[in-house]
Structures are given as C-alpha cells and as structure tokens.
C-alpha cells in the first residue's frame, strides 16, 4: 500500500486503476482507542496532493470532486492503457449508494485503501494480480459438500442399470467395494493435489506442475471436451424424465431444454455464491424424496436384496464387466470441485474437508437407496430386479416409488430424478468452464475464453461458450459423441494419478495442507488400482466407445500443436504463484509482489 508501489507498477507497466480512498486518519485504530480509552490520539493526518504525487511518479492522476463525477472518471480510467490514480474520494465515503457502486465497479481491478492507512491495498493488489479478476467467495463447508455431492452423486438415478446387468448382490457389493479402489483414491489424491496447488483450473494446473505444459493441455482439453458432451447429457436425461410423464412435441423439448441451459448459464455467470445456493436447493429437492423412499422402502419392502448375488449363468467377472462402466460413471467426479479453487477462499482447507465428508455420504446414499429399491422390487416378485433399468419399460426408482407409495411418491421421486440431472448439469457447467478459462490465461487457447466478468468476477465467456454448445447439442442426436466420453475422461484420470506420485518425488517437501497418510510407494500401489480400472474401462465399454474414443484422443495433440503455435503458451515463471525463475531471478509477477509488499 506504500506509495513506492507506484514506481513498481509504472516500471512494470501494470495497467490498473488505483482508487485512493482518503478518510484522513486511521479509522480502525480510532475505533479501538475510543473503546479502550474513550478518546483518540495521533490518528488524524493531512494528505499531500495525491494527483500531484501521481504525476511525480509519471502516472496519470485525476481528482474526484463530486460523487456524480466518479462513474465517468472511472470509465475513462478503465479504458486507458496505463496506470491511473483517482485521488481524494473521501467525500464519497458518506454516500452509501455511490460507495456501493464504486466497490462494484472496482471488483475486477485493484485499489489502494488509503495513502496513509493500512496494508490492505498492497495485499489486495497481490491478490488481484494473482487471481486476475476472479472473485473469491467464502464458501461454507456445507456448500462445498453440496458441490461435491452434486458432482459425484446427486441421487442414485442410473443405478437401476447396474442391478439388471450385474445382479442385486453384486451391485450392492460393488457400491461398497469399488470406492476403495476407485473413488476414495481419487478423493484423497484430489485433496492432496488440491491442497498443494489450490488454483483455478484444478486438475489442469496440477498436471502442469507435475508433468509440464504438454500433458496438462492434453488433460485439460480431453476433460473439457468430455464435459461439453457430458453436461448436455444431463439436460437430455432431465427432459427424458419429463417427457416420460408428459407428452410434448420436439419443439417444446427444445424450448424447455434451452430454457434450463439459459437459466443455469446465467446463474453460473452470476457467481459461485448463487450457484451454491441453487445447488443446495436442488439437492434438498433430490434428497428429501429419496430419503422418504429409502426409509419407507426398507421398512415396507420384502426379500433379501443381496440375493441372488449374480445373474444366472454369469461369472463374477462377466457380471462385473457389465455394470462396471456405469458404476465407474456413478462414482466419478471427485476431481471436479478442484477446478473452482481459484474462486474459493482457503480452497486448500475447504475442498479436502468437503471431499472427506462427501465420500461416505455418497457411498451411503447409493447403498441405502439401492437396498431400498431392491426391497421394493421384492414386493412385486423375486425376479423384478431383472427388469430394472432406466428408460422405457424398466422398473426404475420412479416406477418403484409408485408401487411403494402410490402416485404422490411417484411424482416426488420423478421430481427428484429431474432435479438430480439438472443439478448435475449446473455443477458440471460450473466446473467444466474453469480449465479452459485457465488454459486461455496460460496462452494455450484463444484469449477471449479467459475473460472475466468485471462485476461478478466469473469466467463468463467460458461458461457462456459451454452453455451455448450444450444448448445446440441437446437438440441433436449426439449418441456418437457420447461414446468418446469415457476415453476422454479416463485419460486425464490416469494423468492425475501419475501426477500425485511425480509430485511426491519431485517436490517432497512442498507444503500440502492435506497429505494422503501413506508413504509414496504405498500411495503408488494404491493408485495403481484406479489406473488399472480406468484402462479396463476403456475396453469393457465396447468397440463403439473405444473407436470413438481413439478418434477423440487424437484431437488432443492436434489442438496442442495448433494453439501452441498460435498463442505460444506462458512460461512457468509467468504463471501465478511463481515469483522467481529457476535461476533465482525475480519474475515480473515476483517484482509486482515485491513492490506490493514493500
């Protein structure tokens, strides 16, 4: 916050606007003095001519005389290409309305709180430089848990397909066992890497630090492509549920679909706070009916859900193969919340905690709801499980709810299923947009994708782009595109697991707020399981998936070669958080930080 920062900013040609909010004193200290001593001493000051001071440093300075002048002056200042000091805003302090407008306008920039005040200004400057326009929100743990729950579970709809493929007993066993070798390792690894590299873009940035620019681009590219398709699937599934109950034309389907996309695109652009609130409401709408169904189903249903363990004539391996792909899908998404790290305060603490709470919550939700579904299935016959699948003609949660509780429960569960898919869409829209945003900031994708909203501090172009593609996709038959999903998702997963081991070896002493409580060799053994499962998944999904996926994978090298040659990429030293080069010299960012700290 010191005035010397002007020299640093000028020398580095940092193009931002400084608002000097001069209240002529140490206001906070005054408050404490009054409380403690009943009077104040030595806290009032005169100011120099701040505009003249700005000129002395060779930067522009403008004086604001009236509140009404501020919007115009600020607009001009923001349009200029150099450093601007807007001085003497103290008269605005008492004008609450103007002050709110002022703060809102400045959210995407940086400011100094006062020429003689505290160090808030310098910290702010560093923070804003580091975050480059992304607004950090204070996310409560419960909201973070809701995010994790939404991205990994959002109800149990879809498990029906596993039951008829793998058998009731095997389904329940897989719900309990698969997490140990699939989702729990990912949750732990995501916690460790997320606490070590708590930056926007999450997995993309982890892999960059561990494996370099090429592989991080591949992971970010494949993951983003996958989510472009994947998120559209959830809107289509929500529409399928609605259309299963109410007949309407394709035009209305398109209108409703685009409406859902538009609403949640706006909510996401508006910010993580609103997205968090909307996901919380959605998950209440999902879980209340599901809990009612589960408790009622377990109490009123009949039969032993663990029998038969396998479908007749199937071996353990063949039965597992059939349901494994769906089950892996149901247990995926643990890495997703990490992409929001750049917009959450204390992500290195909040995200691991949320993952640790979310993991047992998701397992319990799947287990007990499927247990209840099988008990309800037992009410109509011991072989009802063979007819359990989602879509037309199958016994899914909605049909079972009607058997259990009549039309009322049927509609409640139908609403839950629709909300579940909408929640997944909203969650994946939020997380899917961030890696491409960060890749743009790292000069590996077109610059416009890296824009942030000046008021709301969100990557609005990346979100809008994803929403637009989703709105187009839901109006076409994109079955062929879905086939590339598993491949495009599994490859980044393998890279994430490799990264955690590489980071343990490369940077064993780097600070990690969360560390998987096991030595590196044991961690290597543990993550070998999900890597093996990911590779197996590539083969068990069928050749449709495999051939589509092989083609999808090749888009990664092509895209890298094209964008690398156009946009060049950014050096590691230029990335946020790196203040010195490997040779020990100060980077531009480091110089800015030093200037701000001075």
């Amino acid at each position: 916050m010191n005035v010397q920062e002007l020299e640093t900013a000028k020398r580095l040609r940092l193009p931002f606007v400084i608002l000097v909010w001069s209240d002529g004193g140490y206001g906070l200290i005054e408050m404490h003095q009054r409380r403690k001593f009943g009077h104040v001493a030595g806290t009032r000051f005169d100011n120099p001519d701040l505009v003249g001071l700005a000129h002395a440093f060779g930067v522009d300075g403008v004086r604001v005389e009236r509140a009404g002048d501020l919007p115009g002056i600020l607009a001009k200042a923001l349009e200029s290409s150099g450093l601007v000091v807007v001085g003497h805003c103290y008269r605005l302090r008492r004008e609450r309305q103007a002050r709110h407008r002022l703060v809102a306008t400045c959210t995407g920039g940086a400011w100094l709180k006062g020429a003689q005040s505290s160090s808030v200004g310098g910290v702010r400057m560093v923070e804003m430089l580091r975050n480059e326009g992304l607004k950090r929100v204070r996310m409560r743990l419960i909201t973070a848990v809701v995010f994790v729950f939404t991205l990994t579970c959002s109800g149990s709809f879809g498990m029906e397909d596993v039951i008829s493929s793998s058998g009731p007993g095997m389904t329940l066993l897989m719900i309990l066992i698969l997490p140990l070798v699939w989702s729990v390792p990912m949750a732990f690894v995501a916690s460790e890497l997320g606490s070590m590299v708590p930056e926007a873009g999450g997995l993309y940035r982890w892999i960059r630090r561990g494996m370099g620019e090429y592989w991080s681009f591949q992971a970010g590219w494949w993951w983003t492509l996958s989510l472009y398709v994947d998120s559209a699937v959830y809107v289509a599934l929500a529409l399928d549920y609605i259309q299963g109950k109410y007949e309407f034309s394709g035009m209305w389907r398109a209108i409703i679909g685009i409406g859902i996309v538009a609403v949640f695109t706006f909510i996401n652009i508006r910010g993580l706070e609103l997205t968090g609130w909307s996901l919380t409401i959605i998950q209440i709408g999902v879980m209340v009916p599901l809990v009612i169904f589960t408790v009622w189903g377990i109490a009123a249903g009949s039969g032993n859900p663990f029998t038969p363990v396998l479908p007749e004539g199937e071996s353990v391996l063949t039965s597992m193969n059939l349901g494994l792909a769906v089950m892996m899908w149901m247990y995926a998404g643990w890495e997703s919340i990490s992409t929001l790290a750049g917009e959450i305060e204390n992500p290195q603490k909040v995200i691991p905690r949320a993952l640790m709470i979310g993991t047992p919550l998701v397992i319990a939700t799947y287990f007990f709801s499927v247990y209840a579904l099988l008990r309800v299935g037992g009410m109509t016959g011991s072989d009802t499980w063979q007819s359990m699948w989602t879509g037309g003609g199958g016994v899914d949660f909605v049909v079972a709810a009607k058997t259990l509780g009549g039309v009322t429960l049927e509609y409640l569960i139908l609403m839950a299923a629709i909300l579940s898919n909408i929640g997944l869409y909203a969650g994946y829209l939020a997380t899917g947009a961030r890696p491409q945003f960060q890749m743009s900031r790292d000069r590996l994708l077109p610059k416009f994708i890296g824009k942030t909203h000046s008021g709301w501090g969100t990557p609005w172009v990346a979100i809008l782009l994803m929403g637009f593609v989703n709105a187009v996709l839901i109006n076409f038959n994109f079955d062929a595109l879905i086939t590339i999903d598993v491949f495009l998702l599994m490859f980044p997963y393998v890279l994430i697991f490799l990264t955690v081991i590489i980071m343990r070896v490369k940077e064993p002493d780097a600070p990690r707020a969360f560390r998987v409580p096991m030595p590196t060799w044991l961690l290597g053994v543990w993550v070998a399981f999900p890597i093996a499962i990911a590779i197996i998944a590539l083969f068990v999904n069928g050749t449709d998936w495999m051939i589509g996926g092989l083609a999808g994978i090749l888009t990664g090298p092509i895209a890298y070669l094209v964008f690398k040659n156009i946009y060049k990429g950014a050096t590691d030293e230029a990335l946020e958080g790196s203040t010195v080069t490997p040779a020990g010299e100060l980077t531009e960012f480091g110089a800015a930080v030093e200037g701000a700290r001075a």
Partner: protein
Amino acid sequence: MKGQRMANYTAVTGILAGVAAIAGGLYAHSSNPLFGIPQFFGIYSKYLSGVHVLIGIGVVMIIGGLLSFKWPSVGGIIVCAVAMLGLIYTYDRGQYRWTPMLYYWWGPWLLAWIAGIFAGYAAFKNVPQSSERLADARHAQGHSA
C-alpha cells in the same frame, strides 16, 4: 532448432504409422476384402472402402512424417489428423463398428498418437513461451487495453 531430436522422433513414428496403416490395409484386404462400405455421400468407388482408406491415409502419414523432419508441428498435425479422420470415416460405416476393425487400426492409431506426442514436445522446445501472462490481466478482465 532446439527440438530437432523430438522432430526426428516425430518423423520416424509418423512414417512408421503410415507403414502400419498400409500394412493394416493390406492385411484387411487379405482377410476381409469387403472391409468398409465403398461409398461416401452416394458416391460409390472401391477407393472409398475401408481397405483403400487405410492405404490412402498411410501414404499421407508417410508424407506427414517426412515433413516432420523440417516442420514437426505441421507433420504431427497431418499424421494425427488423417488418422483421426480415417478412423471416424471407417467407424461411421455402420456394421463395421466391431472388434476386427481394431485389428487393422490399433497400429496406425498408436503410432500416430505417439508421433503427436513427439511433435508436441518438439513444439514445446521450438516455440518460445511468452513471459507476459500478467499483461493479459487487463484484457482478460474485459477492459480494452
């Protein structure tokens, strides 16, 4: 050129990918001459069959591989792009979405992918990275710098 070694690797694997594609095409011709419906948007020609597509892309891959010695990015894009397009073209032949297709395709695909990786590493070494990420902050915030 800093990444010449990587460029050489790109070239070699690109040429090998082309050879593998031609070999795959010849193998398909001997084991299943009717592989791939020989039509595209209503045009019927034996040169549009899965067999001929494999051989055709093999030739283009070899050209891409040779170009990689001098221009690894261009060569890498050619090798990967023709492999991708050929795969999609053959995949989209309806009844040929079955495992035997992979018998003919796994070699060209894997080698093309590896060529793309080498080309990427060559590009990483050859294209100087920008150190001006911070200068984008204003642009990225939506202000007209």
